[in-house]
């Protein structure tokens, strides 16, 4: 595997073709393959079941043509025994296979595809280069229908009664992207039961899709037939008002749900981990990533259907749990990679070595590599050139180290492929030879030259010479840049003492890190104090009491109640926060910040709330069970203040909460009529089971729309609720003894915290994470994390998972004594600086400040630890007093001038 340089010759020569599973069977691949172009590791592998040599005993074409002797037919499967302290199961899910059901016609009609197949059809890297066409005849579709809940919420056909949580959103996404591809007259339609856009910024996406012309039809399609030989499809469905409609579509996309991967279930069973009735790994709401076996944790879709951010949250939470489990052995099995001492090059004239790579035939087959190398040899300060077949191969790397030493090179230029994939490798190589990593420069003569000019060999050679000349001129004035590291104060400051803040604190303290909690109110507990049970029925108050006790008594945790943060400064590893308790000010030094400021149910003036005693909200009835004795009817109203113009988001937890309460009322008072007035029921994931149970118990669900909201009026002996029933097409009047409102969840006031730590919030005042998918608990600035409702409304189990994730992410900082930071930062020339402050205003990371210098007024000062090297400050400076290291104006201009 070390020898493979992923040149692709083996796959080119391999005569055996097979189905490409990565492309969902829509393309062929060879028996020797990489699954996809960006695969890691980028190494070719032999599919033994398809390889002619393994099946029939002869061929070995790949071996014959491999330029680096990387093929080893003797390699055997072997058993490896590992001794580990902990296990994290993350083996994921399998998309539901609809072939076993004839009603979807996936196996029979070419123009019925699954959503996974459609992802590959859409992908620019997919089998059709992103060109959407029908599989039957290659025609561009004008109309596509998406069918929701295929393999989800379906007991009749497939036994998956849960909701897969992600399909509504991915169907909207696919329809919107398809429209981008196919233009304004493309007509997408989504057939759904309830639209479940319950995540952060999902509702806005849904509304935008509607305005972009995506048609949403609340119906299940019952029949799909082919109308003609070209493969056009006819769909038959019944609208909500009872009308039978027959409509033609060019394609149908089945929004398939998630099932636990068979191999994952197998692995879980082997490890003796308990599964739930749906074959996902069983967990508790209070310990959302712990399996039934101590030391074995689970994260992602193996625990239940969920989207990417929630999977990433659980991944970090599982790392946190494993970190607690293994805390006493931290650092015992890892060692830092060491490099030889760096030689000083400051005073020496440049001695540049240029390596012009052939990249097999990728470069050498088109450009005249010897001519390019000869040309480079004539450039000033170039003392050595070479033309390796593959500069990145292991032997070429070893040779490069020798050459650098022998030739006393102090700058290295590699003219080859892209620095995006290969610069780190070459930088490591020159470090192994004792050179600073930043004395390296790359010229991309493959992707930007021979690949795009393959038909013009001479011009390609000339362009390669230009690119090499530019790189050499820049290399001439490259300078060594020392590593940048900062020390780490191994403690955390946590803003907010609710369940998220406390969970984060205890998760860090149990790993041996100190934590301070700053809580505004007089006691710990936050919004969780109002909730009795999780959606799985676990007792929250019991858990909360234990948690408060542990937090209050943990030697590593300091709690400041009735306290507020008045000032904050510093950067990752080195923050200082000033906390005011009464009249006293505490200055706290800490390495990380976790924001867990929480949220609350909003107050409303709708539906007679606050005007009539029988109108309550959220957990009022649960907390005051006497309000339900002898009561004839209870009406729950959903989306009170959510999913409207004022708050264009779904509060995520209200449907589940009301459904849970409705079941509870039905169990305790079977004669009480319970109604839930809703817009879409969003009992996502396994919460769907509660929805089913509620219907079985006789809870009546009536859908309303934003333009026909229910009306609550005072009646002689209680309340009258008027609501238009879209199934009956009639207005109903429900006499209610109690009306309970699911009011919108809003974030706690957080402007002060956002301003003090320079943290972004979205339009609805929830804190904004660094990346919606991949960094759901990090802020963009290092060392700052977010969890709980401060980030978005979420259930207790989700808040706990995110709090543990924040602690897990924080531990990646706190586990070190110092942190290496990219040294490619901005640098102020104070002699030129006029202290105008533009750079400070424009910096998104708080990495450049104004400092008063005696007798010289204000001057800009870099906080290198916070700098991301974006260059905004340098480009905004009116005096050109700021340079970016490694990308100084002079260095860029040297390359530009060389091109001119």
């Amino acid at each position, binding site marked *: 595997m070390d020898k493979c340089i992923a040149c692709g010759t083996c796959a080119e020569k391999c005569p055996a073709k097979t189905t490409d599973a990565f492309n969902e069977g829509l393309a062929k691949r060879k028996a020797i393959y990489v699954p996809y172009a960006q695969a890691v590791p980028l190494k070719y592998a032999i599919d033994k079941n398809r390889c002619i040599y393994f099946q029939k005993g002869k061929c070995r074409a790949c071996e014959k043509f491999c330029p680096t002797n990387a093929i080893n037919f003797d390699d055997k499967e072997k058993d490896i025994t590992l001794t580990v302290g902990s296990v994290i199961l*993350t083996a994921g899910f399998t998309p539901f296979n609809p072939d076993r059901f004839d009603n979807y016609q996936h196996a029979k009609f070419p123009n019925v595809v699954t959503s996974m197949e459609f992802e590959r059809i*859409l*992908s620019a890297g997919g089998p059709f280069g992103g060109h959407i066409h029908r599989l039957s005849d290659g025609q561009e579709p004008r109309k596509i229908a998406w069918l929701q809940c295929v393999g989800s919420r379906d007991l009749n056909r497939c036994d998956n009664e849960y909701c897969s949580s992600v399909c509504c959103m*991915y169907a909207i996404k696919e329809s919107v992207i398809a429209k981008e591809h196919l233009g304004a007259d493309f007509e997408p339609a989504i057939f759904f039961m309830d639209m479940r856009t319950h995540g952060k910024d999902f509702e806005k*996406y849904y509304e935008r899709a509607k305005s972009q012309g995506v048609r949403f039809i609340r119906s299940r399609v019952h029949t799909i037939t082919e109308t003609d030989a070209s493969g056009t499809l006819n769909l038959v469905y019944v609208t909500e008002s009872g009308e039978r409609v027959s409509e033609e579509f060019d394609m149908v996309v089945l929004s398939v749900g998630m099932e636990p991967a068979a191999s994952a279930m197998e692995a879980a069973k082997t490890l003796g981990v308990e599964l739930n009735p749906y074959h996902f790994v069983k967990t508790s709401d209070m310990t959302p990533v712990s399996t039934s076996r101590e030391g074995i944790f689970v994260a*992602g879709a193996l625990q239940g259907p969920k989207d990417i951010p929630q999977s990433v949250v659980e991944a970090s939470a599982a790392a946190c749990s494993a970190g607690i489990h293994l805390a006493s052995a931290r650092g015992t099995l*890892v060692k830092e990679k060491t490099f030889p001492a760096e030689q000083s090059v400051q005073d020496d004239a440049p001695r540049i070595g240029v390596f012009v790579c052939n990249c097999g035939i990728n470069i050498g087959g088109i450009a005249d590599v010897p001519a390019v190398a000869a040309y480079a040899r004539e450039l000033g300060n170039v003392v050595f050139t070479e033309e390796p077949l593959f500069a990145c191969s292991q032997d070429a790397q070893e040779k490069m180290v020798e050459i650098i030493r022998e030739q006393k090179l102090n700058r290295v230029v590699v003219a080859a492929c892209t620095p995006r994939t290969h610069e780190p490798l070459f930088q490591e190589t020159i470090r192994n030879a004792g050179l600073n990593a930043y004395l390296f420069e790359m010229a991309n003569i493959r992707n930007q030259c021979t690949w795009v000019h393959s038909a013009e060999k001479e011009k390609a050679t000339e362009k390669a010479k230009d690119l090499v000349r530019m790189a050499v001129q820049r290399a001439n004035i490259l300078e060594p840049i020392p590593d940048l590291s900062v020390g780490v104060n191994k403690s955390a400051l946590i803003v907010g003492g609710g369940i998220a803040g406390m969970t984060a604190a205890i998760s860090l303290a149990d790993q041996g890190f100190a934590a301070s909690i700053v809580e505004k109110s007089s006691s710990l507990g936050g919004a969780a104090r109002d909730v009795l049970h999780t959606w799985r029925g676990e007792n929250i108050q019991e858990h909360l009491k234990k948690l408060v006790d542990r937090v209050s008594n943990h030697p590593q945790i300091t709690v400041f109640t009735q306290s507020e943060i008045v000032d904050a400064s510093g950067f990752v590893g080195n923050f200082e926060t000033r906390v005011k308790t009464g009249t006293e000010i505490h200055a706290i030094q800490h390495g990380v910040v976790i924001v867990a400021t929480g949220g609350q149910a909003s107050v409303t003036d709708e539906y007679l709330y606050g005007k009539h005693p029988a109108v309550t909200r959220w957990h009022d009835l649960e907390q005051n069970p006497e309000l339900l004795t002898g009561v004839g009817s209870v009406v729950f109203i959903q989306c009170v203040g959510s999913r409207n113009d004022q708050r264009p988001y779904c509060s995520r937890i209200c449907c589940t909460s009301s459904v849970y309460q409705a079941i509870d009322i039905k169990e305790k008072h079977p004669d009480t009529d319970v109604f839930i007035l809703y817009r879409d029921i969003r009992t996502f994931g396994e919460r769907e089971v509660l929805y089913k149970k509620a219907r079985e118990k006789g809870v009546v669900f009536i859908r309303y729309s934003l333009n026909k909201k229910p009306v609550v009026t005072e009646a002689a002996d209680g309340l009258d609720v008027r609501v238009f029933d879209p199934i009956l097409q009639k207005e109903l009047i429900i006499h209610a003894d109690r009306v309970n409102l699911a009011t919108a969840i809003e974030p706690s006031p957080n402007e002060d915290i956002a301003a003090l730590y320079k943290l972004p919030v979205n339009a609805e005042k929830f804190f904004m994470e660094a990346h919606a*998918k991949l960094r759901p608990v990090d802020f963009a600035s290092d060392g700052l994390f977010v969890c709980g409702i401060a980030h978005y409304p979420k259930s207790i189990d989700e808040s706990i998972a995110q709090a543990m994730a924040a602690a897990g992410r924080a531990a990646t900082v706190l586990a070190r004594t110092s942190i290496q930071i990219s040294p490619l930062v901005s640098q102020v020339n104070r002699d030129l600086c006029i202290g105008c402050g533009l750079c400070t205003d424009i910096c998104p990371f708080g990495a450049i400040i104004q400092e008063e210098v005696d007798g010289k007024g204000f001057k800009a000062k870099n906080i290198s630890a916070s700098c991301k090297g974006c260059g905004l400050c340098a480009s905004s400076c009116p005096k050109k007093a700021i340079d970016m290291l490694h990308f100084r104006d002079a260095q860029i201009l040297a390359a530009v001038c060389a091109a001119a």
Partner: protein
Amino acid sequence: MSNKTTVGSVLVVGGGITGMQSALDMAESGYYVYLIEESPAIGGVMAQLDKTFPTNDCSM
């Protein structure tokens, strides 16, 4: 646990987006990580997706 010698390594089963995040977090907080994946490349299902909601970012 205190009576036994704790081993400072972890096995992560599955190299999709979840497994990779767990592995990185564990490695960066001082533990040796074994990441096992049944296919020849890590990346999982996310690598097969075209774009991600709600930002329409490229999945790759």
